[in-house]
């Protein structure tokens, strides 16, 4: 119960001001395409040089929390996920926005984010020692199976047909092999120096989602200049809260999946939203509504990606191992003040540790309040004419892709992928499975190689990958997931063929 004792520190004038600043700044940064939570936190690190350790961490914690949620704004209104964590939000969120329910989608996403986020931070407060053991339980073989589980989702994600989903997933898997292979240092498909580092995931994300949007907007803008991008109907917060409470299953699955996946070092938030979305869809009684602008989709994705924030810090705070890129940046923020995460942090600097954690708790609430306010403003943003909006999004896209690693190469990669995706979309392919392939490919590959090397030196590949409780459990889930998809595919085959003919 230490954390209650330090709650007062969060509300001292300067701390609270920083918390507010971090939250509002984080929402704005998060809503900007290409500025991922990792970048937002990295941008703020130099400011913390001049602050006390506690205050610096409050700023970073607040920014981390709210950038994750802020990414939903562009995901819903523009179909451009601010970070990989928000990909699943685009699936139903943008459809809702197109139907005029943008304000509702935003309200739901911020409310769900707050619920998931608070649950995640509470887990961090009460169960840290247990969770640390969990985080360590996932070795190379388990991460490999987890990535394969993700691959099984690809086919059914946001595509009219399973075959097209799998095809775009394969394109993503292939794109992921470009660059220097991180383990062996081999060079693959590098035809230009800017591909040496592989396809950057943020640049790819912007290209695959934003550029086709921009091209479509330009195309439409020519026909009807001055047309509104999307219409936004006003929606009361009370109704949104009621809607959220009517969907306890989506909220529960999202929150729990997000917390568990957020905990696993190296996989983290990138796939939490997608896995939660898929699970919610499978358990839902209204499966056919997913992808058509269904509120459950938004709730599951957003509660999951904020639930992952708290647990993703467990390996850092207890074992001093940063489990995600954002945690690595936070580690720098701690070290600069001479504080070592681990037992030193909780024993010798409890004021820092608990104030930091508390600030994330309060930050979730503030983020929700400001987010709901932003949702009210959404109607104005949406009144910008198509052609102007397209130009703004294009400028933001170029800026976002460039800023990831200050490289024009990433901008070219973004442009090429974007133009390619524009044509693929016309043939009924969609971007989400492609990005999922791009994310999962390297996870599956590196863990297979690494696990294989350990296995060869010890027990052999077969028993390393196929035995042990966790391995068998994960394999069972993979098999169940494939069987379920196959069964659904067979059941709706006639229906799908008709749809395909129309597409």
């Amino acid at each position: 119960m230490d954390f209650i004792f330090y709650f007062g520190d969060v509300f001292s004038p300067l701390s609270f001001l920083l918390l507010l600043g971090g939250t509002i700044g984080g929402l704005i940064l998060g809503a900007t395409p290409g500025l991922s939570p990792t970048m937002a936190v990295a941008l703020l690190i130099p400011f913390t040089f001049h602050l006390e350790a506690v205050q610096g961490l409050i700023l970073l914690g607040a920014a981390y929390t709210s950038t994750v949620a802020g990414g939903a704004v562009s995901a819903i209104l523009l179909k451009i996920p601010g970070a990989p964590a928000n990909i699943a939000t685009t699936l139903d969120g943008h459809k809702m926005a197109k139907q005029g329910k943008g304000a509702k989608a935003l309200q739901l996403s911020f409310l769900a984010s707050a619920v998931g986020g608070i649950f995640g931070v509470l887990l961090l407060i009460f169960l840290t020692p247990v969770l640390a053991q969990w985080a360590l339980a996932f070795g190379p073989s388990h991460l490999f199976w987890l990535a394969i589980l993700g691959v099984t989702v690809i086919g059914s994600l946001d595509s009219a047909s399973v075959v097209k989903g799998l095809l775009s997933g394969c394109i993503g898997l292939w794109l992921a092999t470009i660059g220097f292979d991180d383990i062996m240092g081999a060079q693959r498909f590098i035809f230009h120096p800017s591909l040496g580092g592989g396809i950057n995931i943020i640049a790819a994300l912007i290209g695959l989602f934003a550029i086709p949007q921009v091209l479509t907007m330009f195309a439409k803008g020519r026909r009807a200049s001055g047309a509104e991008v999307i219409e936004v109907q006003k929606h009361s917060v009370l109704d949104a809260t009621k809607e959220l409470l009517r969907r306890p299953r989506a909220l529960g699955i999202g929150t729990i999946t997000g917390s568990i996946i957020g905990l696993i070092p190296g996989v983290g938030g990138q796939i939490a939203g997608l896995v939660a979305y898929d699970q919610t869809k499978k358990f839902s009684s209204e499966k056919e509504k997913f992808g058509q602008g269904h509120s459950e989709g938004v709730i599951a994705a957003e509660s999951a990606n904020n639930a992952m924030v708290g647990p993703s810090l467990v390996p850092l705070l207890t074992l001093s191992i940063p489990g995600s890129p954002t945690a690595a940046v936070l580690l720098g923020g701690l070290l600069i003040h001479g504080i070592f995460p681990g037992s030193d942090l909780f024993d010798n600097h409890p004021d820092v540790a608990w104030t930091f954690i508390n600030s994330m708790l309060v930050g979730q609430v503030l983020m929700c309040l400001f987010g709901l306010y932003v949702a009210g403003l959404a109607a104005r943003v949406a009144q910008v004419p198509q052609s102007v909006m397209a130009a703004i999004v294009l400028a933001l896209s170029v800026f976002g892709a460039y800023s990831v690693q200050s490289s024009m190469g990433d901008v070219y990669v973004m442009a090429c992928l974007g133009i390619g995706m524009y044509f693929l979309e016309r043939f009924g392919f969609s971007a989400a499975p492609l990005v999922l392939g791009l994310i999962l490919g390297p996870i599956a590959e590196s863990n297979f190689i690494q696990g294989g090397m350990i296995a060869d030196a010890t027990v052999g590949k077969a028993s390393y990958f196929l035995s042990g409780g966790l391995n068998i459990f994960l394999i069972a889930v993979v098999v169940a997931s494939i069987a379920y998809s196959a069964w659904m595919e067979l059941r709706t085959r006639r229906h799908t063929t008709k749809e395909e003919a129309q597409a």
Partner: protein
Amino acid sequence: MKKLIASAAIALMGLAGTAMAEEYPERPILMMVSYGAGGATDFQARIVTMTAGNEDALGMPIAIINKPGAGGRVGWNWFATQADPDGYTLAAYNVPHFIAQSIKGGVSYSADSFEPIANWGADPAVFVVAADSPFNSMADVVAHAKENPGKLTFSGAGLFVGHHIAALQIEKAAGVKMAYIPTKGGGAAAMKAVIAGEVMGGINNLSDAFRAQEAGSVKILGVADLHRSDFLPDVPTMQEQGLDVDNSSVNFRGVMVPKGTPQEVIDELAATVPEMFANPRVAKKMQAGGSPMHIMTRDEVKEMWAAREQTLKELLAGL
């Protein structure tokens, strides 16, 4: 006409050149770090350059830009081929990483593509095992490896980086074969593999291992350097434990400029930068963050690069 323009342009460039040398630096300077934000190199680069704007240092701030990817290759390739050699683009180097990569090939740089300015830090590689491991010294590790050739797994951050060099040296010195497991995701992933018991041991950075030991999750068995570290006075070096491992794997970090940078600018930087590193505020922050400092001048770094290239060529010849 064309000739006239050309000669005018050359004259202008000459003018600009002299003007620059007199007033250098007249605008803020960029420093490229070829690893991601928040990594050890990035973190230390930000600390050691934080006083650059002071009057007694360069008088102009240094801004850090990150170009991560492929173990640093992306950033150094960019620096060797695209950075302007005008003194306003610096880069952080990591030895032995970039030298080993250039020996292995597939990159557009070598030690000759860059001009060193000064060295700020030296982070030795150490051998770590999980806190509950039966190994308590390097002798235990070697004995186990002798009985089980090729079966002792130990992790490190990739191939052709300091950790890999240390691993090769240990194997060579002890005359044993062990299974080096390169991880993706740098030292943090390699450390996680040790703590979680996925591997039996690992090579890691002294600074990270020191923190993990403070957190109670690992034991540090040996330091791959010529001397014991101030951070770990109780941990013996490899040589003290009878393994002939020198400081070839020590991760030296410092500042360099591209070849072709005007000599006056190099001289100016080589004179000022080591003093900037020696600022007590810098030392305090580095100490607090658990990052060992080791300031070397341009001439010392040149010597160190040449020596490293020699050793690495021999060591990597068989691979």
